[in-house]
Every structure is written in C-alpha cells, then in structure tokens.
C-alpha cells in the first residue's frame, strides 16, 4: 500500500477510534501518530565493542522489532497509543536528538501535552552471549519543565517566594543484561507463536501468523475493539483479524528476559496519566506505573535499580504535587515532598534530586512557611546540591531567592547582613558567568 494511502486510512480510522497503531519507519524520516496520547519510538540496538564481538546489525534490528511488538501489545491497555519501530539506513546513525527534533516539527508533529518515549540501546555479542543495555528518554512537549514550590511568610502567611525544581531526569540508563543467543531465538519463536490473527475474537478460533518473518515490525491500525480483543488491519499486507491484547505479563517471555520493558510500561503509564483527567483512569494508570516498576526492581535488584526507582518516585511525587489546592500545602503536597525525599536518599549524588527535596521537605515540616528552621534546612539542602554540581542553575537561583528574601525581610537567621551580601555576590558571579557561557 502506498504510504499516502496508508496515512489517509489512518487518519480516517483515527477520526472514529481511539488512536492505536504501530508502524515502521527509517530513522531519517521518523514519524509518530499525532492523534495518539503517547507515542513510543523503538530505535535499533546499536552494536558496540571490538569488531570481533560486534553484534550483527540484524540482531539489533530484530531486537527492536521484538520490543516494538511486545511494547505495543502491552500498551493497548492504555488506549490512544502508537508504537513505531525505527530502522537505520546507510549513513544514518539514528541520533536520538535528531529524531526527537524531527517529530516535533511539521504537520504531523507531536501535539502539546502528548507523551513521547524513546527506547534504544547498545548490544554486544560474545560467543553465545548477547550483552545489552537499554536507555529510555521521555518528554511531554509544551508541559512545564519545572514545578513551582510556593513558600509563604512565617508571620502573616503572605506569599513570599516560589522556588523551582525539576525532576532528577527525564531519561534513565537501565541495568545492563545478558541474554543467551538461545534465549533470543526462543523469544522470537514465542513471539511468532503468540502473534496470530483469528477470524473471530475467540481463543479457539483458527489462527494464522500475523508476521511472515520474526523481524517484521507491527504496522497496523486497530479497527475494532471488544474487551481485550482488538481487530487489526495490517498496513503492510492489508490482512485483518482479531488478536488478544495481553493484560497479564506472564505470557511474554521477552519481558521476563528484558525487565526494562516493564519499566518502559511504567513510563508510558506516567505519560498516559497526564492526558487522562478521569479519576478512575488515573488510578488505573498509577497502579500500572507501580506494577511496571516493581517488576523491574524485582528482576534487576534494588542496587541496579536505584536511579530508575528514584526517577519513578519523583514522577509519582510530581503527579501528587499537581493536587495542590491553589498553591496551598495540603496532604498531596506533603505526600509529594515525602516521595521527593525518598528519591534523594536513593540517589544522594544527584544535584537535581537534592534541589527537589531541599525546597520541599523543609516546607513540609513548616506547612509552607518560611520559618527560621525551614530557611536553615533549605539553605543546607541547596548547598548540598551545589556541592555536587556547582553549575546547577535551579539550585543556584533558589539559593539566590532565599538570600534575597532573608535580606529584604531582615531575617538574618542563617547569615548576618555582611555574609548575605557576600554570598549574593558569589551567586551573581556563578549565575552570570554561567549564563554567559
């Protein structure tokens, strides 16, 4: 089918159905499904290491195809999702930044507030072993990159200042894994066995394979849905049939061997949650988010999952933070502050995590008031963040706001007037020179 006809069909289907689709494109002309609330782009796993041990290109491409297949079926529960497998062409290194830039422009660009998640990785073969490491990055174009943390004056509760903080990261390097080539072949065989089309939504109905080759990516539209059964139409062959979207993970062997896919599912749940304001839906997404992370941690161990866990806690905190009532501290803000503090304890070496906790945890104790104790604790926490990253602009600016407030309110609780003046001069130097660079 010609590409324009495929997209026209897609647009027609999008008009009447929730967006559910899969596709395959070269990295150089990467596209997403603009109507989908969340899009996943699966990049080829690139081989690395000495020439002798380099994985063949086909291993990386086959792995990407398997990930797309598994992720898409896992994502069906979220509705309004699209997954595209990207493949490299000669001379195209599939650069992540270039791909993100390309899907942000043009008529079919990402829509504000919709979510995009990319997964890619490195792969290395040594004898019968395949070593791989996956990376995730996610974003929501048009969404605020930081959260504002309001603080009020201690005496009269009047608005005093607003700190700023960002999540520790919007990407994570997941724990490296080792697969055997036998495992890999088994995964492919199982994927082919489970990816079958049936004429009716019935497990006992006769089946035929959807894909003719194991490395064939799923390119289809969902044209009808009944419960967890989806009727799909292939964009490649035009054939259609019913397939059951798997709601339980036990059937998916790739996820057992690649638990990072469970983490990917958790990130997709987070992105989907942002575009669904229905409370019941939000609870379901949050539940899936927690399930996905728990599966990942169970598989790789707490130490290897530290950064991933900290990010998940911070994201949950961000979701809770959005429940602040008119900027006033409430239970949800308190819950968020506790989650941010837990994230900081997991990754004490992260300046961003420290900044986030430094401007929220002390205010949790004081219910948003800039008491002397809160100011001292915020100062200590922000200095901790700056000790780890002297160029962290958010931490530097937050410290500047704190000192300016102390200076103008004549609150020399943390430093005297002379010290404050000197420290503000240092901050100006650090920020001004940094911003000039």
């Amino acid at each position: 089918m010609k590409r324009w006809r495929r997209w026209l069909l897609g647009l027609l289907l999008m008009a009447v159905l929730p967006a559910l689709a899969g596709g395959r494109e070269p990295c150089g002309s990467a596209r997403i499904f603009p109507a989908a609330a969340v899009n996943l782009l699966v990049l080829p796993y690139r081989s690395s290491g000495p020439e002798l041990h380099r994985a063949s290109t086909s291993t990386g491409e086959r792995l990407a195809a398997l990930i797309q297949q598994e992720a898409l079926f896992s994502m069906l529960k979220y509705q309004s999702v699209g997954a595209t497998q990207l493949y490299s062409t000669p001379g195209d290194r599939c650069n992540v930044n270039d791909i993100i830039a390309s899907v942000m422009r043009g008529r079919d660009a990402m829509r504000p507030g919709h979510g995009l998640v990319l997964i890619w990785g490195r792969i290395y073969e040594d004898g019968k072993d395949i070593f791989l490491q996956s990376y995730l990055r996610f974003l929501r174009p048009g969404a605020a990159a930081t959260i504002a943390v309001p603080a009020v004056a201690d005496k009269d509760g009047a608005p005093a200042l607003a700190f700023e903080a960002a999540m520790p990261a919007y990407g994570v390097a997941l724990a490296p894994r080792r697969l055997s080539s036998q495992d890999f072949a088994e995964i492919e065989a199982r994927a082919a066995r489970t990816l079958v089309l049936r004429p009716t939504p019935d497990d006992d109905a006769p089946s035929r394979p959807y894909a003719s080759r194991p490395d064939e990516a799923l390119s289809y539209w969902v044209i009808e849905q009944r419960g967890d059964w989806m009727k799909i139409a292939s964009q490649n062959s035009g054939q259609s049939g019913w397939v059951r979207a798997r709601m339980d993970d036990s059937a998916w062997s790739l996820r057992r061997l690649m638990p990072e896919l469970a983490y990917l599912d958790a990130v997709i749940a987070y992105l989907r949650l942002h575009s669904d304001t229905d409370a019941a839906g939000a609870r379901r997404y949050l539940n899936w988010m927690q399930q996905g992370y728990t599966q990942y941690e169970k598989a790789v161990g707490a130490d290897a999952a530290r950064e991933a866990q900290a990010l998940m806690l911070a994201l949950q905190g961000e979701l809770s933070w959005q429940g602040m009532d008119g900027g006033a501290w409430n239970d949800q803000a308190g819950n968020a502050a506790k989650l941010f503090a837990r994230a900081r304890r997991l990754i004490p070496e992260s300046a961003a995590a420290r900044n986030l906790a430094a401007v929220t945890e002390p205010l949790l104790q004081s219910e948003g008031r800039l008491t002397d104790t809160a100011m001292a604790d915020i100062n200590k926490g922000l200095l901790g963040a700056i000790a780890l990253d002297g160029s962290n602009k958010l931490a530097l600016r937050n410290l500047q706001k704190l000192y300016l407030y102390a200076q103008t309110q004549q609150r020399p609780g943390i430093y005297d007037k002379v010290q404050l003046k000197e420290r503000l001069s240092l901050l100006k130097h650090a920020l001004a020179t940094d911003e000039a660079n």
Partner: protein
Amino acid sequence: MNYLIVPLRNANNRGSTRAPSMHRFNYPDGDVRAGDHVALISNLDLHAFIAAAIGARAYERDEFARAHEFLCKASARLGVIKARLASAPASRAQSGVIEELRAYTVELAGAARQRIGSAADSPAAASVRLQDPANPCADARGQP
C-alpha cells in the same frame, strides 16, 4: 571483587595519606547482586570509587573546583555504601573502612575549598566558595 583506587594508592605510597585505597567486596552483598561483570557496570560501589579517584586526581592536578565536586559525589555515595555494610553483622567492620575513606574525601574536599581561597575566577570556583570550609559538602557529605 577488589577495587584499587590508584590515585589514593599513590598517595599512600608517598605517605601523604593513610586513607584506605584497596577495598574488597564479596558479592552478592545486600542490595548489590553483581552476579557477573556486566552487573558491576551499574554498581554503586564502582561509581563511588571512580568518583573518589577522579576527585583525588583532580586535586593533585590543582583542579580544585572539579576535585571538590567529585569528592563530594564520592562522599555522598560512600555514605550509602557505609550504611549498607553497617546493616549486616558480617560487614560491619568493613563499614568502618568505608567511613575512613568517606571522611578522607570530605577532608580533601575541604582542602580543595581552602585552596580556591578567596579567588572566584570562574563560576565553578564561585559556587565552591559558597561552601563552608569546615563542612565543604554541606548535607551531601554522606552521613545519614
């Protein structure tokens, strides 16, 4: 798994510090499974020792702002390792050795802060000058 922090071992050999430079771990250890070399890549222990090595080396090269940053990062991570080791009776003694190393990284970060002195000729140096020389990593020093 044995970790040797080479810049610290060199400093041991020169007699400039007695901070422990060799560390031995019997994995799996608490949260650290590290059943093979691949799993070691994302190991907190490895990252802490690398940060300590970079910090110590930067200090030797008079790159004090960089030294301060990495030594504080090492200190923050070593605090987590120390707590992990202290939580199990079998590794409680080893937690003391890690604490020695952590205290040394903070001490060296303080020395880096002092060496920057009053010259804030770069944004990084200005940031370091915000720190208290007696507590150079603020609450990132790695103590619970």
